[in-house]
């Protein structure tokens, strides 16, 4: 079921009409809004069903916020994609930011650390069922995590890579941007990789021992 407008505008048409005044601009905005709304059920598939009572209000909010951002950022559109793909990209960011916030509203990093403590890898606890070599490997990796990473890096890694929390949610709770959190995690992975290499181990070797 598609309600997408059939008007075919080129990128130049879109930019021209959105930057003008009067009826042409209003028409372009209305069409763009309809395009955003038509895309959302697909974007949110697996997140929120269009049958959900919350869907319509969310979609309205997302469309509204997307149009504001689009108008605000019009000058940063680089013509390297279809204009509508660029707009959908913005809509997706707006929508998922809100849905992640809702989905993880009750999970706090603080509670997570209180519960799990510093040793982030529960898997690292020796288990009789595993072969000796695996327990050794887990022990080594656990030690490297403790020695090589900062508390912040371990916390972020546990939240994102073990608990599966979104970067966006973790970043917000840690008082940083998602971008900065990605860099922090990248730095953590890099430190681990280098340290393992210095120890004569590669992550691939360690993984191989678990195959």
């Amino acid at each position: 079921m598609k309600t997408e407008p059939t008007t075919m505008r080129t990128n130049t048409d879109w930019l021209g009409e959105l930057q003008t005044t009067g009826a042409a601009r209003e028409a372009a905005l209305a069409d763009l809004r309809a395009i955003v709304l038509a895309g959302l059920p697909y974007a949110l598939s697996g997140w929120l069903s269009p049958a959900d009572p919350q869907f319509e209000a969310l979609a309205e909010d997302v469309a509204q916020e997307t149009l504001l951002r689009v108008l605000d950022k019009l000058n940063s559109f680089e013509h390297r994609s279809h204009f509508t793909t660029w707009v959908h990209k913005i809509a997706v960011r707006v929508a998922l930011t809100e849905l992640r916030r809702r989905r993880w509203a009750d999970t706090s990093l603080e509670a997570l650390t209180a519960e799990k403590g510093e040793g982030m890898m529960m898997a690292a606890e020796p288990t009789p069922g595993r072969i000796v070599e695996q327990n050794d490997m887990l022990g080594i990796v656990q030690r490297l995590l403790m020695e090589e990473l900062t508390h912040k890096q371990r916390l972020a890694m546990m939240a994102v890579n073990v608990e599966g929390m979104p970067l966006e949610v973790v970043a917000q709770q840690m008082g940083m941007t998602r971008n900065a959190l990605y860099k922090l995690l990248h730095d953590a992975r890099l430190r681990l990789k280098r340290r393992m290499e210095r120890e004569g181990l590669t992550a691939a070797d360690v993984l191989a021992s678990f195959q």
Partner: protein
Amino acid sequence: MANPMRSFKRLLAMVAHTDEVEYSCEQAHRVLDEYADCVMRGEDVTAMLPLVHKHLEMCPDCREEYEALMRIVRSGPLHPAR
């Protein structure tokens, strides 16, 4: 609830595939629309935009957004004029 052993293995795999230089979320987001359109045209994005491709492998948030964006563009009419 995450399976700790699986998470552990996935983390190790990520460490193994970590590059010295990786795109940040902002850098990847900036060209995500271009990346999606390239995919739609059947172009080889791993060769054309390798740093974006890599970021999408490493960043769950950006990957989710990419997947959502692709669901939209795949649902659309044949691509509009540019």
